């Protein structure tokens, strides 16, 4: 009797706690992935497929651990992320410049603007043959592919971002006698941020895809190369382990958390926009 009353009290307190919802969601998420691994393990134990087709969670984990332990995995993550940041950084600078130029100079928009839209429709991996012929099997070639993969998406969203700045905000700068450079610095760049956030995310995911595709073909260090190594060694556990690692790298290190969440949060706070 007493214990049931205590339980009721505890439950009502727990439910009334403000952060109960958040704790519950985290617990549910952990339970979901634990269940998924358990399901995987059960399917493996049922021996429907041989273990060289579907390995269990344990050998996959062992493989990943081996590659963590011998340092190759970290070297690969480092090599991949380095290409990613160099490539995306270049694409960001070039894409923003093209986008802002297109938005401000009418004749440029009418000529280069159409070409940018056309280039955007190319799947980024189609730049790879060209890159190999131009730069050989080198770091430059793979960074080129990453740049071309995201450049146009960033340029298009930068252009739209500038165009979306309310006319009166630009005219205000003019009224106070701002020069072209001052207008870009104090109005265009901050004003385009709400629109650019989406374009940067899109560009980031394009870069990431072209980078993985490129690394699969290249004989250099990197996560894509590890995947291909697993295929050559016929090591299914390694292949699956690296795929899981790639997902974790994307989720943990990747775009949303580190790069774009702060930007979106800032925009939301300043502009007073509802959560997207």
């Amino acid at each position, binding site marked *: 009797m007493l214990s049931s009353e205590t339980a009721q009290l505890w439950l009502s307190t727990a439910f009334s706690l403000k952060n109960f919802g958040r704790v519950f969601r985290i617990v549910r998420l952990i339970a979901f992935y634990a269940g998924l691994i358990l399901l995987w393990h059960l399917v493996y134990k049922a021996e429907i497929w041989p273990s060289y087709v579907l390995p269990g969670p344990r050998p996959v984990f062992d493989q990943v651990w081996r590659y963590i332990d011998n340092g190759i995995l970290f070297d690969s993550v480092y090599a991949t992320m380095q290409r990613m940041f160099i490539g995306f950084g270049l694409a960001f600078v070039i894409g923003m410049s093209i986008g802002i130029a297109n938005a401000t100079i009418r004749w440029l928009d009418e000529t280069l603007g159409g070409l940018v839209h056309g280039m955007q429709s190319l799947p980024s991996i189609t730049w790879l043959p060209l890159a190999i012929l131009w730069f050989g099997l080198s770091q430059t070639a793979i960074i080129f592919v990453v740049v071309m993969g995201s450049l146009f998406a960033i340029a298009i969203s930068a252009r739209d971002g500038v165009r979306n700045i*309310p006319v*009166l*905000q630009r*005219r*205000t*700068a*003019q*009224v*106070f*006698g*701002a020069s072209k450079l*001052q207008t870009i610095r*104090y*109005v265009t760049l*901050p*004003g385009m*941020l709400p629109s650019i956030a989406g374009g940067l995310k899109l560009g980031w995911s394009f870069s990431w895809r072209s980078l993985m595709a490129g690394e699969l073909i290249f004989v250099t260090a990197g996560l894509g190369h590890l995947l291909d190594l697993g295929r050559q060694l016929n090591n299914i556990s390694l292949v699956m382990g690296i795929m899981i690692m790639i997902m974790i790298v994307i989720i943990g290190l990747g775009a949303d958390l580190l790069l774009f969440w702060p930007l979106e949060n800032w925009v939301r*706070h*300043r*502009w*007073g926009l509802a959560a997207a």
Partner: protein
Amino acid sequence: MSTFFSILDAVRPDRPRTRNAENPEATRRSDVLLSVSNITKRFKTSRHDTMALQDISLDINQGEFICVVGPSGCGKSTLLNLIAGLDDPTSGQLVFDGKRVEGSGADRVVVFQEAALYPWLNVRANVEFGLKIKGTPRSERKDIVDRYLELVNLTKFDKAFVHELLGGMKQRVQLARALAVEPRMLLMDEPFAALDAQTRDVLQQELQEIWARTRATIFFITHNVREAALLGDRVFVMTPGPGRIKAEITVGLRRPRDPDTHAVVDFAAEIRSALQNDEYTGRGQEGNFAI
């Protein structure tokens, strides 16, 4: 009333006394700040050829409060843009402070109807914007911004962001931002049109006080005749198609004025009859006026 102004003169001895509410003729003799002569503005596209302004001439004196009343499409905003230097006239010329108007500049600052503040800046930084463009040293900016925030009663809200402000507060920020660069002329493009009636009353009152303190020359566009009678030294009445000045009414009333006194209401009625009495009332424009 005269004591009130003489106190102001004592406070600001460096500025000439250019305005005398009890004797409008005194205003006429003072310096001309802006001279608009024979302005025509034509907007030509492949489909339309619109005469927005035709043969506009007017002089605005130092320290005067000018109101322009007219229905939508009469070219009053076009005229404001020409004065601001945001657009060029098709013919005729504007002379501001002895120089031909060529392009915009911080000596003629515009207060827009809405949406002209920067959402990524807080109130303080918005007010600071014009000073930053002008190149005022950082050390001086803070004091100037403080002074103008106080003038528009927003000292407590200096850290707020634009989306957190009510409509009337946004217009006060715009006003402070414009005044902070100490322009020779303040151009106001229907600044209170989007506000609710109570807020508009308060801001009209505040604008009268601010004008008395700063002695800025104000060019104020409105479609509200009562607002024009309340605020203006002189009121220009414009008609559309093509945009022309139809009448000029001198409002010789003491300040500060109360919107509910008979004198103001009478002037409002006079402005309204000037707007309505002839050819264009038949074109369905009469619905645009509020008293």
